[in-house]
């Protein structure tokens, strides 16, 4: 056991810090053109897709260097690495694992150069947590699939150029998991219609997407026909690696401490209130545990294990922490809580981030069934 970083890793951290000092203005000074320039510099550094293999245009960074990069960027309140979070997090790693050479050539360079824009089609009107029962039908017709049905809660479908689409290619398959395939579908294909859904903070992020006789070539399929479940589970496990969960939470905690330092409780500074202090200490302890859990998972991955359901731990912790943290902020704000500030926004918005990628109860199911071996519901 050794938590020290090697000299090479320490030098890399120093390089990231210097890059940030040279190129990243504080959030309030970031103008309209900022993201364009920022991305250009990240592309030059090969820090987008940093841990992807070099043969696919990645930076060839180690998982530890990737962790250092993410941690420093998060501390500096930098935007996500790259413009296409969905594409980089889910689609890219799935392409590297399951894609044909043509698919890799077609999609990976755009992902790494901030020219891509993906959305992911998992949930359906009657299919949420129970992804294995998805119904969107794709029927083989010559060299094409013809798709009919609907997806919902599709974030960024209204701006994305492609959708990572899960479809049912064989409704008669022995197991409901073995009749699923993934189709990399252009959003401008005739027959696709996007209807906006406004969320509780008045924003339009997600949509319902309708598919009417949508034709895509068989060559758009990622992985073998009927192997879609494996492709999707690998992609979801990437989302659950656990590291980015903790860096995000560290940011929330710093913000919350700052708020507490500047707040009053019962006519006295809030930090003199024993309950406020203990709540903050408890959050700090749980978030430290998340960071260390992430590092422990990282060590397992470096030693050769694929991310698996045990990484649901950090997803669940985030799910049970975000809303109570916003709740403490709201209590510190007093009557201000009914206003429109950042925490008031988070107190509503966290309801979405907690559910996205699988609600806390779904994470509990995953842990109980796949790790503890308890029977499925």
């Amino acid at each position, binding site marked *: *056991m*050794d*938590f*020290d*970083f*090697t000299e090479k*890793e320490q030098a890399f951290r120093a390089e990231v810090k210097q890059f940030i000092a040279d190129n990243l203005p504080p959030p309030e000074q970031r103008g309209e053109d900022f993201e364009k320039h920022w991305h250009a510099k990240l592309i030059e550094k090969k820090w987008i897709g940093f841990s992807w293999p070099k043969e696919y245009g990645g930076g060839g960074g180690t998982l*530890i260097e990737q962790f250092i990069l993410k941690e420093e960027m998060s501390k500096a309140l930098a935007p996500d690495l790259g413009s296409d979070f969905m594409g980089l997090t889910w689609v890219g790693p799935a392409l590297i694992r399951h894609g044909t050479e043509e698919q890799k050539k077609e999609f990976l360079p755009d992902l790494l150069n901030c020219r891509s824009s993906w959305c992911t089609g998992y949930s359906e009107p009657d299919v949420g947590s129970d992804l294995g029962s998805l119904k969107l039908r794709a029927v083989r017709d010559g060299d094409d699939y013809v798709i009919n049905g609907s997806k919902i809660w599709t974030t960024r479908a209204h701006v994305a150029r492609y959708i990572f689409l899960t479809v049912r290619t064989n409704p008669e398959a022995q197991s409901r998991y073995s009749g699923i395939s993934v189709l990399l579908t252009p959003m401008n294909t005739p027959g696709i219609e996007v209807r906006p859904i406004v969320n509780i903070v008045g924003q339009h992020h997600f949509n319902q997407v309708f598919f009417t006789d949508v034709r895509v070539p068989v060559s758009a399929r990622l992985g073998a026909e009927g192997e879609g479940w494996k492709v999707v589970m690998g992609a979801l496990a990437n989302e659950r690696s656990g590291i980015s969960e903790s860096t995000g939470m560290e940011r929330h905690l710093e913000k919350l*401490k700052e708020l*507490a330092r500047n707040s009053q409780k019962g006519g006295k500074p809030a*930090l003199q209130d*024993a309950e406020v*202090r*203990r709540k*903050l*200490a*408890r959050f*700090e*302890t*749980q978030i*430290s*545990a*998340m960071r*260390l*859990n992430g*590092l*422990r998972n*990282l*060590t*397992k991955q470096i*030693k050769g294990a694929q991310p698996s359901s*045990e990484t649901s*731990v950090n997803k*669940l*912790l985030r799910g049970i922490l975000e809303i109570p943290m916003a709740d403490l902020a709201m209590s510190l704000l007093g009557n201000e809580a009914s206003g429109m500030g950042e925490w008031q926004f988070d107190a509503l918005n966290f309801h979405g981030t907690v559910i996205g990628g699988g609600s806390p*109860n779904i*994470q*509990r*199911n995953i*842990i*109980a*069934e796949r*790790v*503890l*071996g*308890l*029977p*499925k*519901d």
Partner: protein
Amino acid sequence: MDFGFSEEQDLLRAQVRKFLEDQCPLEQVRQIAAGDEGYCPRLWGQLAELGWLGLTLPEEFGGLGLSWVDLVVILEETGRSLFPSPLLSTLLAATVIDQHGTAEQRQRWLPALIDGSSIATVALLDEQDYLVPQAIQLQGAAGDGGYRLSGEKRFVQDATAADLFLVAFRTGPGDDDLGLALVPRQAQGVSVADTEGWDRTKRSGVLTLDAVQVDADQLLGAAMLGAPAIASIIDYGALAVSAEAIGVCEGILNLTSQYALDREQFGSPIGRYQGVKHPLAEIYVDIECMKSLVYYAAWALEAQPDDAPAAIAKAKAYAAERTCNAGVAGVQLHGAIGYTDEYDMQLFMKRSKWSRATYGDEDFHYDRVAGYGGI
């Protein structure tokens, strides 16, 4: 960066687990718990032979010179099997003697503590049950070239088994007026009484000192060590209890998950129902977090000492709160059988409550975390 155990540490774990499963299954734990001594001298001798009593102590005294990370491996296993022994007390006392003792004191005591011929414990808490050096009240009056100690120490772990006590006392009101005295059980004026508790796998007692003469050579380090030395004992204790608590939670999770698979109600194993499987998933999450916090703290103790007190406070705060929760959930998920004497769940639940209080509960340690975290 390598947040994992070495092959040697994995082997050590397998060895300890096999030893405890073979030599001290829960029937044996119950027998020891029902006895007067509170431990099994035969097994204690075997621990010494296996080298575990001197795991972290220098080789020149018969120890193995390994680290606290290695020790955590053993403590997880002793927690998991609820192994009743004065291991924790003796390790803490030996660690303090090794760190602060004079050459003569280390030579005098460490070989005996490592070969199992002597059992030691630390006596910190006074009438006021508050775990900070400043709350230590027992007075040492200067006299005859040493000190005369009078007073009472409570919550002394393994008091009846010990033949050596490290007694915290003060000669004045300041932080520098605190010292530790090496007091043998047979010294004039020493008496020990067992305190009855529900968890008989962990023994505690009251140590009464009636004008006990402590000569200059019995003063640990031949000096008043001051508050930091005593604070470090609290940290070692908190870390050790947290490491055992991981094993306690694993014991609870294994027992209760198996029961959830075996027990059928409404036509199905109860583990199918979310009211049962979700609390079990939460115990798993807590174990993962406890492992992360404890392993890091054990590593920091030697490699990043400045960060160790905060890391230990986090580990113990989490362990105190969540082990207790696991104990409650474990009994409740079993239903009536969990409330019986004959079924083993109760042993784990009682231990979970011991684990909460010993070396500081969550409130105590969260207050420390707040202080270290600039809150």
